[in-house]
């Protein structure tokens, strides 16, 4: 079936106007500001003096441990030498009588600069265009090659990515907001494919490039590093958990937002191991959006003209997540309290990622990208002009949240609480725009039925059931699926959840689509129809993973 394609004109046709381009033009100035602001923050956080020295010493110690225990290819060659140098500087300072504070600050500045330059995105406009063209062209060609037989298919225009990837939701909203202020896109995170997918969506919607934090480990791969640098990624090193690093990172992202750089955060932190929709978000980066908004209000003479920050939740949906077996494995091990497990990411080389993409586009599998409604940093929905709207439709002045006795003020605890509130609203919005696929539906029903059948067993016992024990009679399965489908369709009517188009088919057809698509390329299928026409599974862990997608709606009671 060919869907109607929509194309969107770029909202800023000349890429020279893009905030990210301007930022990279003034890179030196920007980095200077990041360094200065981070140094100030860390000084005030630690309280300076002796505590600052302790902080630096602990940073050095942690870095040394990291270098010894967990070195990466991408690490700078002089890492060890640098931190040894810091060590002797710190020793000198504590031995000297005067000026300790000043000298400690010099060391702090040196470390912060090193971090800031490492984080810095190497965005280049020409590279961006090329990388994007390669990605889009490449994907589209592969897709056509797989769908239309014969060599000529490589040049066919019949099928494009848009036939496979459905973008739904408030598309016009995000385009409007990107012209009114800084957009922070906060997508769910299920797969390594997500960042590429989101990058492509941004391009299709005619939005200027976004910046985003990508794991430094991904820069280990040359091909990936090239793409990501070009696509505006800055580097996030999850090994570095010291305060100096985290504060530099937060300052970097905060200042970029203030400068109007649209950004992407994956607020769940890492890919969802369980397959559940995110319910707990990492608050650190979200907090920097609240801070950025407040500082934009504070530094502007008139808050009505200050740069406004908009949060746009986005839900990505797949029938099939390639990494599912590894992800759910990690999740179960973690939940099972097995303390030691190796994070052996199977898809950590360029080759493997390439193979995945090939498989994915060669065989095809539907993906949906649901764009949620834009909101301000307090979680109030905004209208198309970017005004925050209250429950009764009244306009809310967002800066008033940061005011006390007529002045906009800094209050970290208050902003932490605002971040919590924002996080809750984002999670709600995820659940509201989440698009139910038939594959999620059948997986959910089947696993819940198995669970009910073995009520006295805990999860781990259920996951060890044999294929025969986990077999369900088709009649029962169909009846329960129909019941839950009705509930979901009702909720959809009320605007509380979204559904894929195919969910409006006849029940038998919905089930068929679900069974055919759920985790379709895994060696062991999460759901199969037996010779007798009943429903069974080849891998309960995977069934559990795909089932989890519909958790959080209280659907259990309908099974």
């Amino acid at each position, binding site marked *: 079936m060919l869907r109607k394609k929509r194309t969107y004109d770029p909202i800023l046709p000349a890429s020279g106007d893009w905030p990210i381009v301007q930022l990279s033009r003034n890179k030196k100035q920007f980095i200077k500001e990041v360094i200065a602001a981070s140094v100030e923050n860390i000084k005030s956080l630690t309280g300076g003096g002796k505590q600052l020295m302790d902080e630096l010493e602990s940073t050095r110690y942690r870095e040394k441990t990291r270098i010894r225990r967990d070195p990466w290819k991408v690490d700078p060659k002089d890492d060890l030498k640098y931190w040894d140098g810091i060590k002797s500087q710190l020793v000198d300072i504590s031995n000297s009588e005067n000026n300790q504070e000043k000298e400690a600050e010099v060391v702090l500045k040196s470390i912060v600069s090193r971090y800031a330059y490492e984080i810095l995105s190497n965005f280049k406009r020409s590279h961006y265009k090329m990388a994007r063209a390669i990605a889009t062209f490449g994907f589209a060609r592969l897709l056509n090659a797989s769908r239309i037989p014969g060599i000529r298919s490589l040049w066919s225009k019949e099928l494009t990515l848009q036939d496979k990837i459905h973008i739904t939701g408030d598309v016009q909203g995000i385009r409007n907001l990107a012209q009114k202020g800084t957009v922070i896109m906060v997508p769910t995170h299920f797969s390594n494919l997500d960042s590429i997918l989101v990058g492509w969506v941004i391009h299709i919607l005619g939005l200027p490039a976004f910046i985003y934090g990508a794991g430094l480990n991904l820069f280990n791969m040359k091909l990936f590093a090239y793409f990501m640098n070009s696509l505006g990624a800055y580097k996030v090193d999850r090994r570095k958990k010291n305060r100096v690093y985290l504060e530099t990172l937060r300052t970097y992202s905060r200042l970029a937002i203030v400068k109007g750089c649209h950004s992407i955060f994956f607020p769940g932190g890492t890919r969802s191991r369980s397959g559940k929709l995110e319910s707990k978000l990492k608050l650190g980066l979200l907090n920097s959006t609240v801070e950025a908004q407040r500082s934009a209000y504070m530094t502007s003479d008139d808050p009505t003209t200050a740069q406004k920050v908009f949060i746009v939740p986005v839900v990505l949906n797949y029938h099939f997540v390639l990494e599912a077996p590894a992800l759910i494995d990690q999740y179960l091990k973690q939940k099972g309290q097995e303390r030691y497990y190796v994070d052996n990411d199977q898809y950590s080389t360029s080759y493997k990622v390439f193979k995945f993409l090939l498989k994915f586009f060669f065989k095809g599998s539907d993906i949906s990208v649901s764009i949620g409604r834009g909101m301000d940093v*307090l979680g109030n929905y905004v209208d198309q002009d970017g005004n925050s709207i*209250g429950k009764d439709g*009244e306009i809310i002045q967002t800066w008033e*949240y940061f005011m006390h006795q007529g002045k906009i003020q800094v209050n970290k605890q*208050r902003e932490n609480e605002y971040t919590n509130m924002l996080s809750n609203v984002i999670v709600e919005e995820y659940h509201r725009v989440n698009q139910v696929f038939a594959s999620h539906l059948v997986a959910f029903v089947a696993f819940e039925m198995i669970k009910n059948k073995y009520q006295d067993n805990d999860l781990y016992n259920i996951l060890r059931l044999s294929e025969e024990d986990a077999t369900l009679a088709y009649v029962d399965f169909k009846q329960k699926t129909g019941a839950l489908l009705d509930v979901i369709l009702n909720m959809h009517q009320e605007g509380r959840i979204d559904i894929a188009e195919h969910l409006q088919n006849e029940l038998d057809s919905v089930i068929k689509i679900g069974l055919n698509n759920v985790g379709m390329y895994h060696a062991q299928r999460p759901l199969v129809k037996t010779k007798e026409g009943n429903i069974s599974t080849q891998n309960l862990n995977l069934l559990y993973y795909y089932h989890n997608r519909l958790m959080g709606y209280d659907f259990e009671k309908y099974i």
Partner: protein
Amino acid sequence: MTSRNTSKEMVGVIGSGSFGTVIANLLAQQTKVILYTRSQNIYDELVSKQSIRSMAMHENVQPTLNFETIASNCEIIFPVVPSANFRNMIRDLAPNLHPYHILIHATKGFDTSIDYNHSESKLDRSDVHTMSEVIQQESVVVKTGCLAGPNLAKELAINQPAATVIASRFEEVIHHGQRLLRSDRFQVYGSSDITGIELCGILKNIIAIAAGILHGLGFGENAKALLISRGLVEMIYLGSKLGGNIKAFIGLAGVGDLVATCSSTLSRNFTVGQLLAEGQSLSEIMNDLDETAEGVRTIKVAYQLTKSLGIRSPITEILYKILYQDLKVNEALNLLMKFPMQEDIDFL
């Protein structure tokens, strides 16, 4: 921070019942207070005699009949109105509120949209709201707080020593509450568990009615101690299911307030229990009472919640039957004493 006395800061109080007026007087020791009342009589009395129901009011307390006045002059407002009227009051106030407003309420009851007169209706947590939740649902205000503790209005009015808890997720709200209320005779503690502290204040009224019954039946301290300790356990069972932290219940707003309301004939809820024991019917009692006894309403809501959440709550259940199903008080006591025993404390 604004200094005491000298500032031009004005603080609002909404509600001119006995607790609202006491709060207004406490605040007036530090700052100017605007007291909202919907009663023209009270307004006139305050303007002409600087008193309310013949109780002298501090000269810093000025009345208004107008929400706009209070909201535009006061960044910090203390709503003290019965739970049954709270939502409507906030709705009327809401158009005047801004995100910078701070609302610290002192209302000790549930809000529920469900027809709670219908005894079969089952309530979920989502059908029942605390006052801070109502404020957030009905207005743009996010900085909410609540005030709870052993604060019998009549004792506070004659300046006896006491303490209270201000709970809020925002440290600044606690800070302002302390700044405005603390005095030589009044201590103010802080808590970040606003839901827990709100639930303490709400649920203790159930036990207060039971204490009144025991008192009315002429029982002594053993019986009261039994009631208070088992009552606390019941509060904790339900309270923690509704989102409160156990810690709140063993603090000033929990056990502290419980002991005060179960011991004092000054408490309205206690009085309701006492009159029940003396053989009056609920409707007779309610007709005679000049102010709301929140416990009467709370028992109904709590009973339905414990049913739907599957919580053992013998005291609440028996009280519900006395109040709404004409169970005789003496029979009720027999039933209660026969209730199958469980472990004394199983929640810590």
